[in-house]
Every structure is written in C-alpha cells, then in structure tokens.
C-alpha cells in the first residue's frame, strides 16, 4: 500500500514534466492553432485577430501557467477547434480505445498462452519451430500492413467481418465484438507474438528445474505440472513484458484507429496534433500519462501475486 501511494505521488511531478514538454514541443513546431483555424487563404490580419482571441501571442510560460492553473482544478479547458470541453471529448473517445485495447489484450494473451505453452512443451520440435517462425513474422509485420491484410481477407474477400466502424457494447455486444476483432488482431499480433516467445523461453527454462522434475517424480500429471507449478514462475518475466506492451497498445491504436475508422483517443490525438489544438493534446497527455502510470502500477502489484518475495 505504501508503495502504491509512493508511486501515485511520483506521478505528480511526472505529469508536470510531460505536460510542459508537450507544451514546448507544440510551441516549437511550425504553424499554430490560428493557422488551422483561419481556413483557406487566410490574411495576416485575420491570423493576428485569431492569435489575439486565443492569447497565442502571450509568452510560453504565461500560457502554460494559465493552462496549469485550470488543470489542477480538474478543468482541462476547451478545444480550440470545436470549443467542446476537452474532458468530454476524451471520455467519448476513450470508450472506443479502451474497448479496442481490451479485446486486443484478450486476443494477444490467448495467442501467447496457446503458442507459448505448446512451443515450450514441444521445445526443439517442429511445432516449436513453426511457433517461432509465426511469431517472428508477427513481430516483423507492421500493424498497419497487417490490418490491411486482415481487411482484405476477412472483410473484402469474404465479408465475414466489418472492415471499419464501431458499435456500442451496450447496444449490441455481438456487433461490438465483430467490429473490434480485426483491429484488435492487427493491434495485438505484435505483443501476442512477443509474449508467446517470452513465455516459451521462460516456461522451457522452468520445465528444466529441479522442482518440476520432483513434481513429475511424485506422479503429478504433466498438465498440472505446467499449469499449476511451472507456469506461475514462468509468468514473472512475461508480466514485465506485458506491462510495457500494454502501454504501447495505446500508442499503436493511433494508426489502427485511422485504418479501421474508429473514433477513439488515437484519432483524437492525430486530429488535435494536426490542428495544433493544444488543450486537447495536453488533456490527452495528462490522461494517457496517468493511465500508463496506473497500468505499470497494476503490473508491479501483480508481481506480488506471482513472486511472493517482492511483497517484502
């Protein structure tokens, strides 16, 4: 508990640093929100007007201070483009992205568990080699390319699954799942393959340890040895990789959401970046940083389940 509180407190300076860095980077990039708001063929006078309206001519620290003052009270401001509350925009988009990440995590975990265990139990054999080769291809395949391939195969050539769009879970869970299967597979293939290889290596090592030989000598079935004894120890390094990958899934969602026309956090991040919509960008940074910190915390906490020594 003490560790959890400490980690949460450490998140505060982290949020300051990350948000300030983003603020500076956006400011350093060519162009500004006024340019994108001014539309086609803007005159210098119109640009000056918009800059004045948005206080874009104020010094950087003044603008950051103004944003920060509101942010600490929970007010992340309004979008410069749509004037909608930033928090509302993020909450709307988060539902799509979280859905995508959840399905992706489930799929990649299933893929990793099945392939990893099979390969470890048949270590050095044909199955192991096939699993290794498939995993290597999945790791090398760019998610965008894989997504295109999946669309071509399962949506265009066979019409089994929709190529794009999103349905709400509460309205129709089956359609929700159908719409997310292809993007989740494209997004989850890489982490799934990595986890599979990690699990295979880790489980192979555990299966060679003395306690496993002892268990087998005592007549415990092979399945029970793997699933009840070796697996738990083998999962410790896997969970570490899983933690990293989970955070990266949110980053990978940017291209996948664009390809599958999912209006999630990734799409929001892209549009706000192109439009220099600083309040939305900063809001996303704050929320995503918090999310990554929480996910890492969750992973750390899970260590104590897999490895009791870390509880001390």
């Amino acid at each position, binding site marked *: 508990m003490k560790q959890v509180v400490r980690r949460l407190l450490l998140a505060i300076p982290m949020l300051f640093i990350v948000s300030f860095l983003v603020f500076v980077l956006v400011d350093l990039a*060519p162009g500004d929100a006024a*340019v994108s708001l001014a539309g086609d063929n803007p005159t210098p006078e119109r640009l000056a007007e918009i800059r004045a309206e948005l206080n874009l001519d104020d010094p950087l620290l003044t603008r950051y201070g103004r944003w920060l003052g509101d942010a600490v009270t929970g007010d992340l401001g309004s979008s410069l483009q749509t004037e909608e509350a930033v928090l509302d925009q993020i909450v709307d*988009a988060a539902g799509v992205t979280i*859905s995508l990440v959840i399905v992706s995590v489930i799929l990649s975990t299933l893929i990793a568990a099945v392939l990893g265990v099979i390969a470890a139990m048949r270590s050095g054999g044909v199955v192991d080699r096939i699993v290794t080769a498939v995993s290597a291809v999945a790791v090398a395949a760019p998610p965008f390319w894989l997504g295109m391939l999946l669309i071509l195969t399962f949506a*265009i050539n066979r019409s089994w699954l*929709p*190529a794009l769009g999103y349905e709400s*879970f509460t309205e129709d869970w089956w359609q929700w799942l159908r719409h997310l299967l292809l993007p989740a597979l494209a997004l989850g293939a890489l982490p799934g393959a990595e986890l599979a290889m990690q699990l295979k290596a880790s489980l192979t090592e555990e299966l060679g340890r003395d306690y496993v030989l002892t268990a087998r000598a005592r007549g415990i079935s092979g399945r029970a040895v793997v699933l009840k004894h070796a697996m738990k120890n083998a999962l410790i390094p896997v969970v570490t990789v899983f933690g990293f990958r989970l955070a990266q899934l949110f980053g990978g969602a940017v291209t996948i959401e664009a390809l599958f*026309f999912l209006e999630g956090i990734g799409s929001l991040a892209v549009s706000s970046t192109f439009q220099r919509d600083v309040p939305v960008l900063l809001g996303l940074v704050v929320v995503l940083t918090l999310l990554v910190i929480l996910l890492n915390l969750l992973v750390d906490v899970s260590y104590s*389940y897999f490895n009791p020594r870390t509880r001390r």
Partner: protein
Amino acid sequence: MRGRNGRWSRCFAFVIAGALVAASCGDDDDGDSSSGTAAETTTPASAATAGGGGGATTAASTSATTSSGGAGSTSATTSSGGTATAEGLTPIPDGVDLDASIVMAYSVPPNNLDPALSTQAADNTYMYMFYDRLTEISEDLEVVPYLATEWAYGADGSTFTMSLREDAQFHDGTPFNADAVVANINRSLTKQGAATARALAGVTGIEKIGEYEVQFNLTGGQPSNLPVLLAGNPGAMLSPAFIANETIDLKTGFGDVGSGPYKVVEYNPGQSASYVRAPNYWDPGRQLAAEFSISFVDPAARINGVRTGEFDLGQSAATDSAEAISIGESGGFNAYPYVINTVYGALFNPGSTGVLANQQIRQAIMHGMDRDAINEGLFEGRCEPRFQPFPEGNKYYFPEIEERYPFDPERARQLVAESGISDPSFDIQVSPGSYEPFAQVMQAQLEDIGITMNIIPSETSAVPVNFISGASPASYLVVLAYPDLASLYANWYGGPFGNMLNPAVPEAAAIRAAAAAANSTALSEQQQIAAWREVYTQIQELAVFAPGCAAPQVWMSGDDVIGVEQMPFIWQGAVVPYTIGKTG
C-alpha cells in the same frame, strides 16, 4: 491460494466491467440521433405535396436571366431518366429507394458550419446539405436559379434585383421571402469576422422591394459576379428567426435554422454530420435519401469502406486515385474519375529578394517544366497538363495561355543566360503529401536548365500563410477551383495571394487596374470575358505561377448508388451530395 485467485479474478472482472461501461459511453449520441431520425423523417411524396409551387417554379425557371442578359436555365433537370415532379424541379429517378440511408466518407473534416464565418471550401459539402443558396452553379459553370428565380443588374450597374421562390420555407417553419433574404445578406455583410463581407465588397446594402423581390445596392459598378457569389456562402439562407437572436453558435452547434433539402440531426465538429430529409421541402428530387451522413475518414478506410459496402460513397485521396480506378475497373466498386478545375503548381513572389525577382528566371522555369513527363511519371497519364484551371471547351479557357510556355529546355537555358545570374537558386515551401512528388520532379527538371530549387518542407497550413505574408518567395500549392475569372482573381492574384502581383513589380499596377475594369457591371458578359482574357494574358507573361497539371479526383460508390456524376460542385471537389440516392 484459491482465495488469492478469487480476489484476482474479481479484480480483473471489475476492471473489464468498468472498461465496458466506458466503452458504452463512446457513442451515446448515436442512439439519440437514431431515435430523432425515425421521428422526423417524411417522404418526398408528402414533401412534394406540401411544397407545391410547380406553376411558379416553371415560370421562374424559364425566365431566369444572367448578368449579361442571356437566358438562364435550370440544369436541375438534366439528370437522365426519372420522373419530374413538376417542370423546373429536379426529377426523382425511377427505382430510387426513398427510405435509403446513405453514408458518405469524405476527405476533409467539417470545420465551421456558419456560412458567414467558414473559410474552408470543404465546409460547403457539409453546409449546403441544409442551407439552400440563392443561385447555383451548374457543371458547365453557368449560374442557374435556386432560391432566386431570376435576376438582373440595373441599367446603370448600381443595383441588382432578384426575384425569389414563393414556395420555400426554413426548417423551423419560417417562410422564405424577401425579408429573409434581407436579414441574411445583412448578416453576411455585418457579422463580426464574416468572410462573406469581403466577398460581397461593393454591396452597400439590400432592400425589400416586394414580398418576393429584393434589390442589392452596389457601389463602383461592382461586383460583376454577384450571381456567382450568391451561389456560395454569401447566398446561403438561414432562418431569419434564428438571425434575430443567434442563440446557437453554428460553429459547434446546430438547430432547425437551415433551408436546404436535409436538416441536421447530429454534428460532431471536426468529424461528421448526420442529416434527415427535411419535411415540406420545395424540391423533393434533391432529397432522395431518408437519412444521410458525411464523415471525415482516413484515405485507406475510405477505399476499404466503399469496397465492403459500409460506405455508399467515398472520395479517394489524390495519391490513391490510381488504386481507386484500378479497383473500380476490377469491379470492386464504381469509380468515377473527374478532373476538377484546380491546378497544382508553384507560386512565385516577383517582389521578393532573390532570383525570383527576375522575370527571365521565372520564364525559364515555365519553359523548363516538362508537364507531360510529370503527368506520365507520377499519374500514369491521368493528370491533365494545364496552365489554367478552366478546362478546354469552357468559356473561360484561353488557348494562347496554354501555348505561351511550351517545354523548351534550350529556350530556358537561354533565358537563364540572358538573366545574367550565375547559378540561380531559390527556396520553395512544400507541404508533405501529394505536393511533394510534384516538387521533386520539378526540382530535377529545373536542375537540367541550371536552376537550383531548394525544397523546404513545411506544415500544410503554413505553406500558404508564409507565401501570403511574404516570408516565402515561392510555395507549391494548388490553385483552387472557382466558377469564373472574377472569383479566381479575387481569391488569388487580387486577394490573399496578391504577392504574385507584388506592387514592387512595375507591371502589377497595370494588371490590377485592368482587373478592376474587367470586374464591372457595365460590361456585357462577352466584354467581361475579353477583358479578363487580357488580364490573365498579362499575368501569364509575368510568369508568377508555374503550373503542373490537374489531377483527377475519384468518387467511389456502391453498385446501387445513383447521382454521383450529377453532384453539384463536382468541378470544385467540394461536392454537394444531395443528388445521391440508392436504388431499391
């Protein structure tokens, strides 16, 4: 052990459940919109009955006159086949499914749906579905009647009168009449930050002279192209009841303020707009679908979505046009390539410091560009080499402009030598994406004639801004499509991109004076065209715009989609898709 497992499972289940609740929050609005849609949909048949006005329309549509006094016509009736509901109204094609929902994937997001404030041409696609305008531009760039049935300039050019339809109404039930037009034009002229005020320069006021007749008061004999301007944002009609209070910020909100064939039921700024058929609309042939939605979609998703039928209609990106045509040819969907009236090219500031201030260098660049090679090399022959945005056969197309600078590397090298400038070099700002390949090929071609062109990558929206402000001596841009020469001049050489006619250049003053004279209501249409021809010939001689070619846009649609080729403004790219329907 089991206890810990149980806790872990419950914890995981809690996280999943929480996430699913969050997921369900993602599109609450969808539900709202669908319920609204069902409640507010009416059929064209009932709309036609309520709209009525066939006799008035017929009379109006046959007596429309243009600024030059020629007879106007209603191109609305040009669709082949179908059954006209009344003479002058748009026919409803045979076999169309009037209960259909249409989903369109578009390349540009909605930015601002207030016609007075919007400055992005692509907003028109979203706006003109629910704002009728006073006039319309046909595919052959003629001004045709819309809410206005006829118009004429006064004898001395200081007034402009319009007669209006008598059977139209706004979505909130307010009748459309002269009072509504007066309120709208006054809003266009006076709303703070209104881009329409600049477009209507020369209009000093408007007055009602009859229940369905208005008179614009003009000054200085301008603008000569008022009927054209009123086909755009200055002529978009909002309910006067809304104008009186302005309770909604139309940039981010919506309401029953429109007058067009569809009414908005959902609007997500920067993303999408959804519509349902407006009840009691005067021309049911423009509302062939019960529901319509337009969304900003990634280029790859647009192609995939039309292929799988999830989108009925989509616009391909310029860089994807070859792929879209290829898929169309293989039967994946219907592909309709259309060369819009735009030209990719380099803009030069002749008043800048550096080699571009030298006319011989600029002319050498014009001669040094091999446009056929650009067309073949980059677009497999589908990008039409052009020096002017108007296509051959159009009344604003001038052959001598095409012939002035043939590809002639020898002549180009000679001009460079005559300039007396050794190793000429200049910077050009180029945005990433479809402009880059053009610029790279141009760079290689200019290298052959001894001119070094340094490509400076820049953010898309910053490229025009830097040219306009004078920070960049050259920019690679696309000259946008306009329906007439006066509009083209007002929005380019005589407008924001006035640096192409930089006052520092001696010839600029004469060209500007000639343009002002050409934009006069005192001239007949033929006289105006002749005057503009002289203006554009002089601009061509100045060599401030080095064009490449005009690339096709490809519209992708499902087999059951009709009306693609008839979409208004297809020549501009920012189409208005109210001709789109689906067969049953």
